[in-house]
């Protein structure tokens, strides 16, 4: 009885309205997604002639695409670069967030503001000076960043940092101090407190941070287009190159393009759906409290 009451009380829209909203939005989300899936299993000629229902399913696009564009290499590159960059961003941001959440010091405010402020800078603005900087590093220190994995990787790491720091400051700030004090009483230092107490408790926050950081690299076309070579090119760049080669062609291969799009979407959508339950609670517990 009581249980039903709680359920009822959390309802924020009248039943039919709530249902209508869910259905309408759900369908609007579905149409382009289904269209993408539909095109990806349609033969190219069917796409052009305008038949919507593919019959029979034409899986050949999924076979062809691997030879039409260097997808396999791009896929591996993207997974590696994006994954390492996001994990790095979580580590670096968690380290920085600990003192930022716990202490007041002279550069705290400027640091937080410049971290957040850097999100306001347009990415194409950063690209050219970054390229010049990387080539300087190449000629003076002998570190080759352009064309290597490391160049794009640290770029994604740095671009993920502002949001990562902000999320982690919020999350660590919500962890009670008493727990660390137990470590100090036992004679442990701050590093120990961070590794033994804060880090395990901050895992949900770290997962959220990791998810948002993944998107930075997985979605980027701009930096990877300039900072990578054929061997290190990411999936997003492969796709955008592929779509540009289809421009002005008499028979653009939209069905193959959509097959490639599906392949590029599966890993990131899967990661999000698996970790979805952390997303909203993690955001709610920390940064947005």
């Amino acid at each position, binding site marked *: 009885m009581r249980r039903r009451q709680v359920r009822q009380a959390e309802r924020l829209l009248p039943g039919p309205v709530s249902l209508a909203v869910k259905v309408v939005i759900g369908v609007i989300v579905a149409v382009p997604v289904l269209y993408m899936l539909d095109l990806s299993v349609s033969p190219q000629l069917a796409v052009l002639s*305008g038949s919507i229902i593919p019959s029979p399913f034409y899986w050949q696009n999924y076979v062809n695409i691997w030879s039409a564009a260097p997808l396999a290499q791009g896929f591996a590159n993207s997974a590696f670069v994006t994954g390492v960059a996001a994990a790095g961003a979580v580590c670096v941001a968690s380290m920085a967030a600990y003192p930022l959440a716990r202490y007041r010091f002279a550069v705290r405010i400027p640091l937080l503001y410049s971290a957040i402020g850097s999100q306001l800078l347009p990415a194409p603005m950063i690209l050219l000076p970054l390229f010049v900087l990387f080539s300087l590093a190449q000629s003076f220190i002998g570190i080759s960043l352009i064309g290597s994995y490391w160049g794009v990787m640290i770029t994604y790491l740095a671009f993920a940092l502002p949001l990562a720091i902000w999320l982690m400051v919020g999350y660590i700030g919500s962890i009670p101090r008493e727990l660390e004090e137990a470590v100090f009483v036992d004679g442990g230092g*701050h590093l120990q407190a961070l590794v033994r107490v804060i880090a395990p408790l901050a895992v949900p926050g770290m997962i959220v941070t990791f998810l948002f950081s993944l998107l930075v690299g997985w979605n980027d076309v701009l930096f990877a287009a300039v900072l990578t070579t054929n061997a290190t090119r990411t999936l997003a760049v492969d796709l955008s190159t592929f779509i540009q080669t289809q421009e002005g062609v008499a028979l653009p291969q939209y069905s193959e393009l959509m097959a490639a799009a599906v392949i590029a979407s599966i890993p990131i959508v899967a990661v999000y759906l698996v970790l979805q339950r952390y997303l909203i609670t993690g955001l709610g517990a920390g940064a947005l409290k």
Partner: protein
Amino acid sequence: MESRLNRNKGFIGRRPLWLVVPAAALLAILVLIPAVVDAYISFFQVTIDTLHDWYQAPFLGLKNYIQALTQSDIVAGSAAHALWVSASFAILTTSIATPIGFLAAVSVNHRFRGRGLVRGWFLVPYVLPGVVTAMVGRALFLNPGGLVDRALSTIHANGNILWLAGNNAFWAMLMVEIWAVWPLTYMMVSAGLVSVDSDLYDAAEVDGAGYVAKLRHIVLPHIRNVLLLSIVISTIFHLGNFTLPFVMFSTPPPPAVDVLPVDIYFNAFVANYYSLAAAIAVIMVVVVLVPGIVYLRATRLGQAPQQ
């Protein structure tokens, strides 16, 4: 209060401030210094010929800025045009996507069967890579043969509209962006709703409050900050979107979708006039500062650590 706590003997030892060094260094080297360099070269004549010793390029003063704002560039009209396109794009998208995200969030606040599924489904547009969204957008609005085109001709509406060229390109881009980004608001509002104590709803129920009263007196006060934050973040996100106009349309894109990031890109990497691109970038930063300052205030980072 906090400083008293810091001096408190409960916290033994030196504060581990060095932990911020890696983050600060990475941001400074990879983001802030390049931005400063860009602002610097916007006053000089750095082109592909003078790039190798850009610090010796001829000084131009404000000439690049004047050129940017008054003369047509490689993509379309002046940067003033790009500014106009960007601003209308960001403002329209945010004001349409925000109510959708809010409605979606309140519609799944209560428990129901399949809730997890619906919540996951709602995130899909946001999680799809930007390139994929742009490609699907292009396929949808293709003429002839795209789904929109076919749907319009089926209902015998004014068919044969070119969505990927001319002024309609703006609306096509707008629709795709709204589709892709409303889940951001949905996510943030949902997170805000987590913090609402369910006792409040129970109390409202006991008092016989209706849905409108619950939304007005419980939900809105609780999520006001989050909602503001999501509006600002969305606006900044739309202003910075490069991938959608770059991938969805031809190269260079039609003038109607010549947003600032695209304009900067084409001036820098196709026309190779870096200083002009830098000047446009600086103009853009000034524009972004408007929502940006609101953002900085809304994040409340300036506040001292809690407790």
